[in-house]
């Protein structure tokens, strides 16, 4: 019985050694460099306003997505794992939404009492 178990173990191990081609890692690596360079250029050329924020967020999510999908292998993982990891992010989105309302209120109160001088 133990012998067969050992046999199964070894076949399992051998199956695991199938890996991705090296090219995909090098491409992602290069892409990350290029995207980082672009996001640095956003500051270099001093873009302001909506253009700056949208570019920063665009490059940020693209980089994060590439790292998670390919370097952390989420692209090749089963959906059971991927969904367990990604759905909790909606809780963070809710928290950001709540705190945005909160900081606007705090800012309003500070202006009202510290700058305007209250009612």
């Amino acid at each position, binding site marked *: 019985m133990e012998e067969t178990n050992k046999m199964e173990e070894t076949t399992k191990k051998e199956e*695991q050694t199938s890996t991705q081609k090296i090219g995909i890692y090098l491409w992602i690596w290069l892409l990350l460099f290029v995207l980082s360079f672009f996001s640095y250029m956003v500051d270099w050329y001093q873009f302001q306003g909506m253009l700056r924020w949208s570019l920063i967020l665009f490059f940020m999510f693209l980089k994060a997505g590439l790292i998670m999908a390919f370097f952390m292998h989420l692209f090749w993982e089963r959906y059971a794992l991927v969904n367990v990891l990604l759905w909790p992010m909606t809780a963070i989105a809710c*928290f*950001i939404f709540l705190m945005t309302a909160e900081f606007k209120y705090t*800012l309003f109160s500070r202006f009202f009492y510290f700058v305007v001088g209250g009612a």
Partner: protein
Amino acid sequence: MSEQKIDGFELKPGFKGMASDTGSDQTMFKGVHWGKAMMWIFLLSDTFVFSCFLISYMKGRGSTIVDWPNTSEVFSLHVGGVPVPLLLIAIMTFVLITSSGTMALAVKYGYEKNRKMCGWLILATAVGGLTFVGMQVFEWSKLIHEGVRPWGNPFGAAQFGSFFFMITGFHGFHVSIGVIFLFIYTYKVFAGHYESKKRGWFTKMKGDYVEIEILGLYWHFVDLVWVFIFAFFYLW
């Protein structure tokens, strides 16, 4: 990179596969090493910790009536008398991405049982991480020298210092822990612990190159967090 085949099972792809995996007996994450699943759960909780820091930074920065310091100027370096904005931060970003790339290759070579290549690449990753921490120490000492404190600074809103030290400090702590483990695993790979199936610490589990992937997940996460810090704290 889970095994897609398990004897006696037909694993369905996509959302149907997710439903049957989740509703099945014994394990939900089919073909995923338990250590890898645990590392992912840890990283998920760590994501929440970093999110709380970054969200509190958003709240603090959004609610102050004093102008926020211009990060482009605060983090500039003088090269030949000319201030270059965010130069050190840009170099740090590139160093961390480089180390992330070497780590990804180390995982690949590990699974291919290429011991030497895997070891050298992990060592390169460790050196990259060490360089990053070194530059962060330089950045901190420069800012402290210029009078930035957790309770105030000469550039603008007083909250700047506390958020800066807390967020970059917590990230730097993660990098430091990562570097220590990278050096330990460099030794383990070169010593052939994964060929001789030597046990790790506190475990009966026999050594396997999947440990390198687990280490890699942590290291890529450190890089991932830096992507967000770079965008929100330095560029915003």
